[in-house]
């Protein structure tokens, strides 16, 4: 594949999804139904960080909260749905 082509696509992808400024610092404080792009995953648990990476949940990718269920959140990453707890939501920075 043409490297230049890929690079362009990623830039375009990011530009279209500006985070609502100043509204959230981590996922637990983010708004529902709003795509955010992830600015980082902050945890000492490296295995979890790697796992999130393999799901496509890492810096530069987008994430959307679909439901808040008490202590849990339903999020959409790539084309899948996950339920995560508040601790993990707080570790995902947006």
């Amino acid at each position, binding site marked *: *594949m043409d490297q230049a*082509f*890929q690079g362009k*696509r*990623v830039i375009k*992808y990011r530009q279209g999804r500006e985070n609502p400024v100043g509204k959230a610092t981590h996922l637990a404080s983010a708004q529902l*139904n709003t*795509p955010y792009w992830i600015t980082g995953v902050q*945890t000492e*648990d490296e*295995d*979890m960080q*790697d*796992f*999130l*990476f*393999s*799901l*496509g949940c*890492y810096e*530069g*990718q*987008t994430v*959307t909260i*679909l*439901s808040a*269920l*008490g*202590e*849990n959140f*339903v999020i*959409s*990453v*790539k*084309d*899948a*749905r*996950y*339920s*995560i*707890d508040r*601790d*993990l939501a707080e*570790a995902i920075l947006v």
Partner: protein
Amino acid sequence: MKIALTGNPNSGKTTLFNALTGQVEKIGNWSGVTIDKKEAPVRKKWVAGNEEIIAVDLPGAYSMSPFTAEETITRDFVQQENPDVIVNIVDATNLSRSLFFSTQLLELGIPVVVALNKCDLNRKKGISISVEALSYNLGCPIIETIATSKGHNGLKGLLEFAILSKGKSQKAPFDSSEVDISNKEAVEASDKKRYEWVQGIIAEVERRKVTANKQTKQDAVDRVVAHKWLGFPIFALIMWTVFSISQSSVGPFFADTLVGWIDGFYAWVEGLLGGGIAPVLRVILLDGIIGGVGAVVGFLPLIIVLFFLLSLLEDCGYMARVAVVMDKFFKRVGLSGKSIIPMVIGTGCSIPGIMSTRTIKNVRQRRTTAMLTPFMPCGAKLPVIALFAGVFFNEAAWVGTTMYFVGIFLIVTGAFIVVRITGERGSRAYFIMELPEYRFPSIKRAAVESFLQAKAFILKAGTIILLCNATIQLMQTFDWNLNVVADGAQSTSILASLATPFALLLVPLGFGAWQLAAAAITGFIAKENVVGTLAVVYGITNFINTDELALISGGDSVAGIMGLTKVAALSYLMFNLFTPPCFAALGAMNAELENKKWLWGAIGFQFGMGYIVAFLTYQIGTLVTTGALGAGFIPGMIAVLLIGGYITYLMIKGERLAYAKKKALA
């Protein structure tokens, strides 16, 4: 040739494997059902030529860097066992994540064929994928499959391409062979590029009418079934429905008919034997074998119905939501929502339940779950519950339901204790669970599953349980001098003399009779044996239709024959349910705990809990119903205090250790 089935969790690998090979491996609609590799030959009807193909089903993995134990199996297999072809099952509704793993598989040099599965769902969701363009970009054949379908499912085409690919080389579309794998940052940078590459491909080959991050009906359902307050009552209601259908309505309805047939068979054999046979042989055959095994087999319909309903539950996608609902409760005692899945599976049979703990990442959580799962009453304990509910409580539905809730209570208490003993209280463990799409459960699959369980149950009844019952019958017929025990001198039999010392220990629990002790002991071989042994030692054959039974045994009630009060009966039931499970389940615990200290700790804990629960039930119950304490209160209380004291000592020790660790860190 050997083909390895790989792909993301819940992409349909086992469904495809079962369709290809005609096997009936366990399927469920959540991530991490398959926990081990399975091999079987592919059926001839899918293969055009004469090629012998072995399919290997592997646990799902998100990438080549494993997170949990079962993902390691997958990586090791494709890296080290040199399959001829890798069949990569890709969930067509989730290309953007699946292709990450695909590109890693394509780098192994082994020819890859992609099965683009669940493509029927794509039509429904308005997703279109250009298969040609995807195939061109990945550099491997892609076949659209619908593994759940019988007809045009794409399996023939898949195998055709697999055979054609054998022996060929595989070019990697995304090559990371230059990357230094010991350098974590370099690997991460390369993997980011990999994901970007995948995104580029997706933009080219996939069109979606609606993006995946928009609200759907599924989300609306989730907000109800996994609701903060409603979630738990809904789960409790669903489980209650499962148990009441299998144990109080539909199950017993069929059981009545079955027991009628067994009684008929008993009478028929009795007639055949006539008077021309030695009485000892006659007793062994009629009461020992037909009566004992018949008493157990009579409960078969309850098991069939239970497994049928559990299979529907596992198939529809609800299990992942239960994990979400239970997470906040389990978190308080150091577990996570994932621990509920082994426990729900364990209501069918503890062994697969215990084995499924492998998908739990945290070691302590995994071991705690494995040692506590047997507290959920399993299918084999169902006959025991049904027997006591029928005989002593007029088939009241609350008996069964209460047993499950006591089981849950013991699990929560157990977890509360274990997290303190291990000194890991306050350690943080994240929870993440993929939420699969709901689907209408397959009636056919549920029927197959319950048929398999029925087969296993009958097999067990015809072998282990038959053998045990015949042995028990022999042991109670003869004394140590091998003379036939005279009527009225039953306590001189081999069985009685062996069981009496144990019976003494059980006096404080309300059931110090040797017959009951013997039944509880045989229960460790298989829990159904409790019913079989009781049938043999009390000479009862029909536990289901108790009115009839009362007539047969001369107007006396079954409850009278056993000589138990209602409270003592409840205590005996709980003792059987909550002491250690059968040996087979202990074997599974041994395998999953991987540590002798944990194993013996777990067994000791189960004995301790079973004893305490039975003691409290009997003594408090007796105090309430009669106004006086039951027999053997003082020695029992001493035993309970010793057990409780030791557990408390271990907890304090663990807490101190945790405190010291925390201090050392700070």
